[in-house]
């Protein structure tokens, strides 16, 4: 984790690392390498909104086919794919589900309670960095709570020590 505020240069450096890995064939398969677009890097923030890692999407058309997750020093944590078979994006989530802030806010808005206002979503995780979610602040006067949005699932951060 890093307390440093990510800069535009950090963002570009991470995206560049992703592009190089894809071009070299270090990750993904040939159909993906020839058809995918590397998107901009998005900071993944921890519970205190500190920078934990970077998410770099890989899109094919309107689908989110895969993504990279890098540590702030650009160590690759993982390369994860939604594809079940090479070249098949039919089961991959729509890009908007994951990357469109308005769509995410709209999902979170279903959890709004009386007099709450909705804040700016930030990419975070639920307990484990493997469990990426959009954290959306819902505020009422000086109180703030988060709801998590991942795809079409919206929920309140779970309490207690469980694997889930």
């Amino acid at each position, binding site marked *: 984790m890093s307390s440093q505020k990510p800069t535009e240069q950090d963002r570009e450096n991470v995206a560049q690392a992703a592009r190089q890995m894809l071009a070299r064939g270090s990750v993904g398969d040939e159909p993906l390498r020839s058809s995918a677009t590397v998107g901009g890097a998005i900071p993944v923030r921890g519970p205190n909104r500190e920078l934990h890692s970077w998410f770099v999407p890989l899109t094919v058309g309107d689908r989110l086919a895969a993504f990279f997750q890098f540590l702030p020093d650009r160590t690759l944590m993982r390369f994860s794919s939604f594809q079940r078979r090479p070249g098949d994006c039919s089961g991959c989530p729509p890009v908007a589900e994951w990357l469109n802030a308005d769509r995410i806010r709209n999902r979170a808005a279903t959890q709004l309670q009386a007099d709450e206002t909705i804040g700016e979503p930030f990419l975070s995780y639920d307990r484990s960095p493997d469990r990426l979610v959009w954290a959306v602040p819902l505020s009422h006067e000086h109180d703030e709570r988060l709801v998590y949005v991942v795809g079409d699932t919206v929920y309140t951060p779970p309490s207690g020590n469980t*694997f*889930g």
Partner: protein
Amino acid sequence: MKALDDKLQRVTALELNGLRVTEVLGDEYEKLAIPRQGTPIHDLNGEVLFYRLSLKRGRTNAGYADIAVHEVLGEPLLATSTGLAWDEKAILEAGTAAARKGRRSLKFDDVRFVAFSFPKIALQFLQERQETLMLELFTWAEVPREGSKDRKPLEPSNFERWSLVEEMPEKLRRERARTFQERLSLWDRLSRRKLNLTAIAKDALLSRDLVIKLVDQRELHYSARDADHHICYELRGQQTNVWCVGASSEMLLNFYRYTYDQIRLAQELGLGTLANPNGLPYSRVGDVVTVLENLTSNALDATMFVNPDFNIFRDEIRANRPLISFIPGHSRTVAGYTRSLFTLVGDIPYRGLLVYDPWPPNMGVITKWENFATQTYQYAYSAVLRHV
């Protein structure tokens, strides 16, 4: 300078070219010549630990490689550098001059290089095989004769002489001897081929009939016969935001052709219902073993590993068995592994897992690869199929 047999040159070439083909070593190594001779570096007990070979470009010393000949070092290649040249003759001259300075009565009939505090090197001056002086390389400071007493092995104080060979614990020594011999066996097999092993070149190991194994890698198959089919494993997304254990159990059971949906698995694991789900409490991690065995009428013999290391995952995948992997707050399954076989000694080789992750809900992702060094592995579960 001691003449080496050609095996040392071959081993050096194979080690360095292996790193060159994988670009662990950069262009600055291309076409450097590997000599047949090197400088023996002794242990304090007199045994030769390794040789330092000067890598040359033309007549210029461009770098060096340290190649172990003593099993206690674990692997042949210890270090290499192109930033610092090694000129044995010049070092001996400088060291001898430093030794004579202020010591007009110094007598010696032999000088040798000694790893007096591995990897620190000194020049040892000998008269009739008895030490008369030892000077640390380049600083030319005299190394004290007496080491500290009443200390633990391998915990020397600063600037203390000690023997790596004699202080190595027996268990570690045996383990290192095994890895050393494994590596030499690999190179012995390659040495029988017609390869140019006198220089470093990116294509030196890329001959038509030779496939160099750069990584050790396996994924689950229908059987243990890797060549027959592609990966045989399927991803299941978790049906609620807290059913990762249910989804992971479903994936593992599906591999063995047991079909239980997550609603049923949630009942067995105490994860609530689809309308009112809950996660698996930390205190009930042992339930996974019970459920896997119960739902297969003990045809599967499940085992839970606490804080599993990489070898647990590797060995299970080699045995064609998937694993459930618990990390803080989450559960996934593992269906493959990879690890690089070429690294410099001291570097950690890349190790990755093929993870079938039920997150995000109703979707899941296939992670290829998860960097093993960046994750915390709390528990792992495997299941062995019992034969009648």
